[in-house]
């Protein structure tokens, strides 16, 4: 395990600036993975009994059986005159995925939201056990199609760390480029969905058109619209030439420029802004204690971005401007995403400008066998996926097959902050809050 990125120490309780990120089992121990917001460090600790009980079922989500929907515990039961439960999903067009909610309401205001997950749990973590990393990759990158590059890069970085295999510089940089493209694409999607929800059809069409252009760039330069299969163990498939890098860079700049024009229109539309401002507030303290990640946390003023706080290779060399906003509402989360499209474009263009030469696949096969005891050994990687911090912990067995995988997706931990933010909001703001958190059932159910 890379000691630069992860600190091993025992933590007894959660402090003001320590966030519980994940709980997992490896080699007979139960670990807690914590984010130290003050020191910007990832801390790995043996799980003390005082910690993680209430989060257990949520963070250890991989252990819940597939095939049965799960209601997340948002705490407390509300009863009273006129209070009823409004079921939503799993089939709906508002949330075009299989997943549901129970909205506890007495008419207009939402009292509580109880997310129902695991309608489409496939059991990715267990089904990759016993497969080679190359075979497991096919499943990993199809766990959440819209975050595919983050998933595959996270998994492969952990595997390669574990095996100690050499990965060419250019491959690492190409992976980072793919992750940034994915982020731009997803933020455009969120923007388009928000516009659609506010019935701003022209804004929605134009954001979707920009998104389609990014998808076509993905397919042209990385071989797949959703970046499946561009990653391989020890390298990447596409070998971007200088000209291709320049072409991609120009295309992305044009898209970003058109998007900023669109944003100027958006900011002058009172009708649009009214729907976002003051909607679904998530206070900073709640964001910290409930474990919010990604744009949702940054929209509440928490500074945590894996590109800055536990960077994988190229991000150590590249200046990433992490966007935060103290607004705490849907508008803040939207503006974080809007500014991240701009900052991602800058990062992506720098990656493309400075793309190193050389091969994209490692010549030497990774070591198939490891020496010594591997039981307590694990490799973990954190990647900033478009919706936030994605964590994967990998262990391989002596034959080089996956023996243990833990995935902590961003959407999983964002359910509780989302449910909290909606409390006492009006019913019709539901969709805005949902889209601004960037929640995906495929991501959280995996």
């Amino acid at each position, binding site marked *: 395990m890379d000691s630069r990125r992860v600190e091993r120490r025992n933590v007894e309780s959660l402090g003001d600036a320590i966030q519980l990120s994940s709980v997992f089992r490896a080699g007979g121990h139960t670990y807690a993975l914590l984010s130290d917001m003050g020191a910007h460090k990832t801390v790995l600790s043996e799980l003390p009994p005082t910690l993680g009980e209430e989060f257990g079922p949520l963070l250890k989500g991989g252990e819940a059986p597939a095939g049965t929907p799960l209601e997340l515990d948002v705490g407390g039961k509300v009863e009273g005159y006129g209070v009823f439960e409004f079921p939503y999903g799993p*089939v709906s067009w508002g949330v*075009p995925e*299989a997943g549901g909610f129970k909205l506890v309401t007495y008419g207009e205001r939402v009292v509580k939201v109880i997310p129902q997950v695991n309608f489409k749990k*496939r059991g990715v973590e267990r089904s990759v056990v016993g497969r080679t990393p190359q075979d497991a990759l*096919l499943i990993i990158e199809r766990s959440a199609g819209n975050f595919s590059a983050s998933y595959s890069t996270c998994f492969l970085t952990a595997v390669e760390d574990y095996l100690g295999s050499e990965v060419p510089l250019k491959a690492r940089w190409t992976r980072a480029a793919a992750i940034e493209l994915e982020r731009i694409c997803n933020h455009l999607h969120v923007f388009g969905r928000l516009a659609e929800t506010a019935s701003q059809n022209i804004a929605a*069409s134009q954001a979707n058109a920009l998104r389609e252009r990014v998808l076509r760039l993905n397919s042209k330069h990385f071989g797949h619209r959703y970046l499946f299969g561009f990653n391989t163990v020890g390298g990447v498939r596409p070998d971007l030439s200088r000209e291709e890098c320049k072409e991609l860079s120009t295309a992305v700049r044009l898209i970003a420029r058109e998007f900023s024009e669109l944003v100027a229109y958006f900011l002058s539309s009172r009708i649009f802004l009214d729907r976002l401002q003051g909607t679904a507030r998530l206070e900073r303290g709640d964001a910290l204690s409930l474990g919010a990640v990604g744009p949702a946390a940054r929209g509440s003023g928490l500074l945590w971005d894996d590109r800055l706080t536990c960077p994988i290779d190229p991000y150590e060399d590249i200046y990433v401007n992490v966007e935060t906003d103290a607004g705490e509402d849907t508008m803040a989360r939207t503006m974080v995403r809007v500014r991240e499209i701009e900052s991602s474009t800058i990062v992506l263009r720098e990656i493309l400008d400075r793309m190193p030469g050389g091969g994209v696949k490692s010549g030497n096969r990774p070591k198939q066998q490891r020496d010594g005891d591997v039981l307590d050994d694990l490799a973990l990687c954190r990647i900033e996926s478009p919706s936030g911090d994605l964590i994967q912990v990998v262990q391989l067995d002596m034959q080089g097959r996956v023996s243990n995988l833990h995935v902590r997706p961003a959407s999983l931990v964002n359910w509780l902050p989302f449910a909290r933010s909606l409390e006492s909001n009006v019913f019709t703001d539901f969709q805005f809050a949902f889209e601004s958190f960037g929640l995906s059932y*495929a991501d959280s159910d995996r």
Partner: protein
Amino acid sequence: MPKIWVLRGLKKGVLTSRFPRAKPTSEEIPEHALPPVPTPQADWSAGEKECPTDAIRSEEKIIDMGLCVYCRRCSSAGFSFDEGAGGSSRALQASVTAHGKAGKPVFGRSLHVMMIDVGSCNACNLEVLNLSNPYYDLTRLGISFTNSPKHADALIVVGALNRAMVDVLRRTYESMPEPKLVVSVGACAISGGVFRGSEGFASPVQDVIPVDVTVPGCPPSPVQIIEGLLLATGRLKKETAP
């Protein structure tokens, strides 16, 4: 300067695809959506060994496109993915099943479609959502999305059918009024794709409800989904496809 959305919209011009009146362009059917074609030198047994989803069967010498996830591992065994390898029309992949309800001109030029996700990775969902973006604009073909199965003429099913969704899918199908069509989109819906062996997977969609048209792909491109919808309503015949 006043910011007027409509003027901005007009200024952007027309982006929409010419399909189905013209052949889909290479941007509309990206490279990764082209199926594998065996070259004369293809080694079928090596292909079978490479294929992670058992789509290649060396004994019968067939590629089951319902299983293929377009991962391109078989390219090392002599299977080609080039556009030129098998003629241009092979980009269009949808096919009518033996159920026999597809292809009849029941719905004329209007169709109300609903999508149901039964356990996908979200990529197919997004490709279906993309159908309403300016590049594909389904409404120009008289096809529109609806929120309720009770208003739907056709059901698009995406994802590997999860055990938790079997009953939901059946009830959604039953609450649609007759006549009704079902289009299953993506390898996961048709066969389970890479999730065939996972614990959440129940069965292929056609084992639960009758499916009229299948659109293979992982995920299929929006144009291929449009083709599936047009095939289902009989507005596009396989032989006359552009």
